[in-house]
């Protein structure tokens, strides 16, 4: 091998670590450039021949809801012949990276999905179209949606999104394991102590069966018990991990871990808790309503023997469920905001929400149609989810100032859930970094 060739190749590889820095946005922007290419001749075509339909690009993360969007597209295009919807699904793991890059590069889809974690960043960044005027001049009435959902997508008095669905948390349980352990099924009067007792009895069955999944979980885990305990997580740029009530809401999970009533944190990370529940290895699990589709599926060995109850009451007699839901937002840089709004309005309307409920994929945010979703699972006590939304729901926490707060909390609390440090030590470490 020639010396000069070795030198050149090595030199190029040295630089490529910087190159990597721009490689991702570089590649993505070429992606989006090719995506928007067909739109350019389209735009000039529209100017010449108004009959040509306007293309509205709709970006979302791939989920079981994809079938619903496809049906909505068909129905919407039939009633709006001047608009063509281009569906652009992206895998969840890449969705936010791609959306931010496309937004920065000015080639983002006209309408896209938003969640509670990211809405503050996008609203504050001024890249979303304010919807107040559009809502005012349309048939959309925000009172039809849960207040917590409207608040989540309202930033400083401006509405930036309309929720499509919502989800709350319930306690799923495996009746077979409860019967074997000889204990009564969970009820709405259940307390955390009852849950602990049941977990102990089921764990005692042995054979690698555990009472509950008590690993580190946010939405389907300690967020609920922290709120029920009167604790708090985020308020503006301050964090609540010094509050004894917050710590107690975390401690109750770690106690279950310590007692050995749950698979270890490592086990739950390598084999997701819902899979262990579906395999019949867990007595109880906190899960959102969207998990009903998984638990009732053919892959689930517990489909016929599981059910859902309200979350248990904490020692102060209170209970809480986190509420979250995704929303449709319009890009501030959309060339066709009116057509984009027509699509958002359609998705927020009665027809689309009715379809979503009937398809049994998610709870439609239009509250009148929420029960349609529950009717898809008559075998389960699904109405506890709307009760949670109406009576004791807490908005999913988010922070604009510290986009890394969830990672810091996870890193430190996982040590507590792995029983390497105490909850107090973990919370002190969190406050050291976020204080």
């Amino acid at each position, binding site marked *: 091998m020639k*010396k000069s060739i070795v030198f050149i190749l*090595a030199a190029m590889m040295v630089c*490529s670590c910087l190159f990597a820095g721009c490689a991702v946005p*570089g590649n993505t922007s070429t992606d989006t450039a090719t995506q928007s290419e067909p739109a350019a001749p389209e735009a000039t075509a529209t100017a010449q021949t108004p009959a040509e339909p306007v293309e509205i690009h709709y970006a979302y993360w791939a989920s079981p809801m994809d079938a619903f969007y496809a049906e909505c597209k068909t129905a919407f295009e039939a009633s709006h012949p001047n608009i063509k919807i281009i569906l652009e699904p992206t895998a969840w793991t890449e969705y936010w990276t791609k959306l931010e890059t496309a937004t920065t590069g000015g080639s983002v889809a006209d309408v896209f999905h938003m969640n509670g974690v990211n809405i503050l960043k996008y609203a504050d*960044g001024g890249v979303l179209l304010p919807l107040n005027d559009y809502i005012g001049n349309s048939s959309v009435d925000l009172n039809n949606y849960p207040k917590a959902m409207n608040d989540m997508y309202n930033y400083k008095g401006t509405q930036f999104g309309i929720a499509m669905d919502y989800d709350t948390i319930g306690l799923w349980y495996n009746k077979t394991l409860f019967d074997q352990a000889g204990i009564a099924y969970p009820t709405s009067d259940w307390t955390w102590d009852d849950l602990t007792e049941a977990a102990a009895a089921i764990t005692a069955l042995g054979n690698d069966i555990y009472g509950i999944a008590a690993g580190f979980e946010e939405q389907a885990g300690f967020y609920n018990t922290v709120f029920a305990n009167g604790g708090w997580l985020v308020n503006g740029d301050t964090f609540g991990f010094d509050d004894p009530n917050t710590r107690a809401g975390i401690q109750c999970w770690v106690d279950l871990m310590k007692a050995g009533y749950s698979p270890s944190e490592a086990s739950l990370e390598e*084999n997701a808790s819902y899979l262990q529940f579906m395999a019949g290895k867990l007595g109880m699990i906190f899960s959102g309503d969207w998990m009903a589709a998984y638990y009732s599926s053919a892959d689930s060995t517990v489909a016929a023997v599981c059910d859902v109850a309200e979350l248990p009451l904490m020692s102060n007699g209170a209970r809480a469920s986190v509420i979250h839901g995704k929303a449709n937002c319009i890009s501030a840089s959309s060339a066709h905001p009116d057509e984009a709004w027509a699509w958002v309005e359609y998705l927020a309307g009665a027809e689309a929400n009715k379809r979503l409920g009937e398809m049994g994929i998610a709870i439609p945010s239009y509250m009148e149609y929420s029960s349609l979703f529950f009717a898809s699972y008559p075998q389960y006590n699904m109405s506890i989810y709307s009760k949670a939304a109406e009576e004791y729901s807490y908005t999913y926490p988010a922070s604009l100032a510290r986009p890394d707060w969830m990672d810091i909390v*996870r890193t430190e609390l996982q040590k507590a859930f792995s029983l390497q440090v105490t909850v107090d030590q973990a919370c002190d470490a969190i406050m050291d970094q976020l204080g």
Partner: protein
Amino acid sequence: MRKKGHNTQKRKDMAWGYGMILPLFLGLAVFYFYPVVKVIYDSFFNVGAFDKRTFAGLENYKNMIADAAMWKSLGNTFLYVALIVPFTVILALILAELLNQKMKGRDVFRVIYFIPTVTMTVAIAMMWRWIFNGDFGILNHIVGWFGGSSHYWLSEKPIALICVGVVSVWMGVGLNMIILLAGIQGISASYYEAAKIDGASPVRRFFSITVPLITPSLFFVLTTTLISTLQIFDVIYMMIAPKSTALVDTQSVVMYFFRNAFEYSKKGYASAIAVLLFVIIMAITALQMKLQRKWVNYD
């Protein structure tokens, strides 16, 4: 007059030459030189979400020096280097030598060892994740036969990093083996014949003929493996779940850079990390280039 004509011809040739390399040069300029300059430039700014920027001077660099997580990830990276580079190079050399022997099924083995190189990292990571799985993985079964205890291989502190290293070696050996094999085959057979007549054993022939004569290839393999290991990212990204307890103890500098740039929208800070890594890699490579005079034979 004749001289002038000669010059025109020369200029014509030069124009052709530049014309021919122009497309490649444009590609390099857009996707290579511009990003390099841009990253260095960005490292002096606070670049937030949607490319909002304010001048920060040396703030990013100051924060970086005080950032324990950054140093931890840099430490992890050097652990990867210590683990991956020697094993990859030595294994590749041994395999290349063995697969240069006349034996049955030689081509089949060459293909087998090369397969990981042409397989998608995602597929490899998926497979290894199942092998290492703490509850259902085959590795725990095998360890069990020999009376060993079960582990959550990808979630426990020192083991997870070693597991990632093992997979990286497994993936990297094939390509390096091919390069070394080509180097070995370029050695004239007469050296070996002469050595055989003199009664040198196969091991002696390997160390006294093969190794000295493939030092240029060996140097190339060593340098590129070192650089690519300092930039290790995809195996970790695919094998360690983003919510894993082991993330802090397995993430490399590039992984930490990625999370800052694309998860926390701190692109300016991420750029500073990239510049630091650039300087480190450049220093190490320059050192290697200097040291090669002592052990690489180019003729």
